[in-house]
């Protein structure tokens, strides 16, 4: 076992991990942050997306030890400081951007990464950016709508009311 230290959602944390411990397992089992989900465990579905030093990554496809010293943000770090939902999270609720909710943590983290680099993405840009996030319930339309709404754009023309 090796000691690993990083900053997660603004707090300094550390723990003992094996070489093979994935970042997602350290977050979920080591820190009890179970908001980050493991869907496929094969780096396809994106339910495990977190931000490492500001970049969206699949935490099932990165070792915990590779995040030594990094700043990690998970879904638990996305709400406003007073605990209320962030604009993006609220938009997912308002526009029914989730049904079962399993993919939602990854969707929110990917969407937040998109909006950080492209504050007013087009519908096509959103759909392309979500290529690595699979949702089996919604058919994506309302997810796209929520992200457009969160970026302050008119969503009346988006498909599937």
């Amino acid at each position, binding site marked *: 076992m090796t000691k690993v230290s990083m900053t997660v959602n603004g707090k300094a944390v550390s723990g003992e991990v094996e070489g093979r411990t994935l970042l997602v397992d350290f977050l979920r089992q080591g820190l009890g942050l179970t908001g980050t989900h493991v869907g496929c465990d094969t780096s396809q579905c994106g339910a495990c997306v977190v931000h490492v030093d500001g970049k969206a990554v699949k935490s099932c496809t990165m070792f915990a030890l590779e995040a030594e010293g990094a700043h990690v943000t998970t879904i638990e770090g996305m709400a406003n400081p007073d605990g209320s939902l962030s604009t993006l999270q609220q938009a997912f609720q308002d526009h029914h951007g989730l049904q079962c909710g399993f993919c939602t943590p990854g969707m929110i983290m*990917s969407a937040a990464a998109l909006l950080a680099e492209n504050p007013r993405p087009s519908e096509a840009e959103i759909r392309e950016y979500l290529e690595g996030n699979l949702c089996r319930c919604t058919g994506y339309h309302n997810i796209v709508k929520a992200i457009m709404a969160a970026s302050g754009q008119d969503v009346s023309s988006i498909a599937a009311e």
Partner: protein
Amino acid sequence: MYNFEIERPGTIEEAVAALAAEEAQALGGGQTLIPTLKARLAAPAKLVSLSGIAELKGLRREGDRLVIGSGTTHAEVAREAAEAYPALAALAGGIGDPAVRNRGTIGGSLANNDPSACYPAAVLASGATVITSTREIAADDFFQGMFTTALDDGEIITSVSFPVPQAASYQKFEQPASRFALVGVFVAKFADGVRVAVTGASEDGVFRWSEAEAALSEDFSADAISGLSVSPEGMIGDLHGTPEYRAHLVKVLTGRAVAAA
């Protein structure tokens, strides 16, 4: 996954020393290696992570060449090569998905030499030079068949030096489930001729289509290859496409790449 140690050296020298251990393996961005380890298709005793080595990261111009550190991610190449070598930037921006592009590296992709990976086509078509911890290897000598390269045990790619072509384009026909190239063709036009490299199609991995290169060096237009055909012999055949289908795609995509270059 079987367990292993992870070492994170800070310099190339330390990484080379760490890789001298028994059953040690270099870890780039891990976007292929970690799924491989999960499937227990590899069982190294030690992984030497290259992600902490600052000198492996970043892009720079060297005269008319673009030099890319092996630890540079696909996302960084997509963003930072856009002006210097737009076709290469577009290729990098089409690998995997955004989260994969934030971790996967050019060096990792080349060292793995997946027969359907995108980067080998760019490196071979550009006539790039692969620079390692011990030597420089011409692209024509680097790729030696499916998942096989000229790299020796413990040798690390440190950077890739691309001559920037006058015009270039990469056209990928995506396998719809994996989004890997079912076939991908990179065409690069230089003052002294045209190079065409094909990925995804051959059982021997990336290769140059020399008949097309000769025809396009005479006349750089999609019509110039209309009379050529690609033999299906040695092409990959699987549930996604027959050898004949892949051979056909090579020609179609080469024409599209020339038109788009």
